[in-house]
């Protein structure tokens, strides 16, 4: 089997994306949650690395060893944290130790993160060079067990890079209309693994959640998200309203059955595997909501 078909088979349709910093719990709580989600039928569990939390390869070395039988993905390993060759070695180490259970999501992070490391923020160029560094390290000493790498991609150039120099894309915080857009650019033979916010509740609850996300993106000047939303046809008024259309596309809300139906639409629109993140204020409630959703959404 190729890496693509093998990864698709292992991932199935639905996974969970857990918040890291600042909600990341102690290791034993995170291990127990990951074990619980795997038991509930989530086929993968993802978490990420912002500056300010655990180093992702060390943390995943622990999680992969202590929680069996579930795929773990980094959403994302941050480019600013280590050179490309170290990311390649980290991924190779995890894949070798836990064959078929690791997906490396790599992300360029945000301008404010680059600024912390005193570096310029030229996302596409920097990512291209980073992937070349990874490839050079892999050419020197190939990974004994292949592992897929996907890029945190929103805009067309990063999606093209995901298609041409990676195994696919892992878009974060995008409306459902991003999935057909991304699939169009990626073509059929690449992985598309979007993270998707879900909310058990009303449209007004969802609107409040979207309002918080928009405020956060504006506060941190996350241009990729703001520009990406506009590229997909949402106006300033949609975003700042936020309008019903924008709310409905950014957050899957309702009861578990409604959310499951909308996940079907997302999978039909070209997603390989959708990662659910409940809109919640604590790690514990995040996991509890995923448990409540599980009977309706996992398949």
């Amino acid at each position, binding site marked *: 089997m190729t890496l693509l078909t093998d990864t698709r088979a292992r991932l199935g349709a639905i996974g969970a994306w857990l918040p890291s*910093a600042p909600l990341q719990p102690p290791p034993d709580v995170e291990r127990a949650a990951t074990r619980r989600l795997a038991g509930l039928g989530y086929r993968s569990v993802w978490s990420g690395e912002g500056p300010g939390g655990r180093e992702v390869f060390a943390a995943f070395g622990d999680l992969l060893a*202590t929680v069996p039988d579930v795929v773990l993905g980094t959403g994302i390993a941050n480019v600013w944290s280590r050179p490309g060759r170290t990311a390649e070695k980290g991924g190779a*180490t995890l894949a070798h130790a836990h064959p078929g259970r690791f997906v490396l999501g790599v992300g360029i992070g945000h301008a404010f993160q680059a600024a*912390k490391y005193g570096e310029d923020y030229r996302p596409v160029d920097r990512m291209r060079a980073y992937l070349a560094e990874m490839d050079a390290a892999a050419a020197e000493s190939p990974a004994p067990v292949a592992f897929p790498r996907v890029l945190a991609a929103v805009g067309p150039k990063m999606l093209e890079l995901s298609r041409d120099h990676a195994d696919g894309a892992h878009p974060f915080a995008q409306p459902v209309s991003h999935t057909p857009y991304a699939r169009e650019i990626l073509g059929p033979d690449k992985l598309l693994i979007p993270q998707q916010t879900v909310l058990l509740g009303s449209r007004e609850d969802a609107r409040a959640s979207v309002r918080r996300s928009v405020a956060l993106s504006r506060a941190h000047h996350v241009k990729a998200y703001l520009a990406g939303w506009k590229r997909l046809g949402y106006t300033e008024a949609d975003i700042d309203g936020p309008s019903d259309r924008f709310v409905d596309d950014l957050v899957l809300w309702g009861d578990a059955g409604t959310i499951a139906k909308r996940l079907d639409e997302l999978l039909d629109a070209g997603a390989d595997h959708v990662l659910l993140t409940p809109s919640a204020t604590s790690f514990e409630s995040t996991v509890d909501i995923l448990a409540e959703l599980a009977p309706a959404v996992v398949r």
Partner: protein
Amino acid sequence: MSVGIWRFFDGAPIGAVRETAAEVEELGFDALWFGEYAGRDAFTQAALILAATSRLTVATGIARFDRRAPITAEAATRALGEAYPGRFVAGLGGHFPGARPIPAMREYLAGMDEAELPALPPPSPRPRRLIAALGPRALALAAERADGAHPYFVPPEHTAVARERLGPGKYLAVEQAVILDASPEAAREAAREHVDLYVRQAPHHQANLRRLGFTDADLADGGSDRLVDALVATGEQAAAARIQAHLDAGADHVCVQVLARTAKSYRRLADLLP
């Protein structure tokens, strides 16, 4: 007496790494140290060894400075210290391509100290941070900005100097190469091969050996007999005596790299220790 095992795992299958770790723990050694060279990422490998054992201290010897940003090294150290309380030691070292080593090392350690990790407070106990320090300025920096030093490829005379430079409160974990079989020809060859690798390729080791009184002649052609004997203890009794000599000279811990290793080497080494 605190004694551990030091080795490279590059090229070893993962299963062999886990089995070795389990054996080292089972035999009662206090720690397992491994280097980061061309192979696995050091902190990732540390995590998998920690997960494969239950009491053993796992130490990077060393995690290379050029492989990750200081904040990343600190975030990895805290993550492992948090997940495996009291069982991880962060040994750090290596080169900074194109930079003056001591200022660059100082900057890196400051970067770790100043790392903004609001979601990851230092775990308790805080993992020891050791520096691969050989010369006087590196040892002074290890005393100032770390919990101690992890000198590699050094005789007990260096350990005495290192203890003096570090002061009494710092941790000194010294690597020592040994060959357990005293079959003179084969042992000499394996020892010389090990010494040759470093005296030929590593200017910082050459400088360190000169500071200890070895001459150009000692360093030529893969190392004089005197140099090889100073760096590699050959035979079981010599190995035991050399470990004790480091401890007597001020080492807190000796991590032993067994050359010409066989499947029984670690058990034999364990049997030598009190």
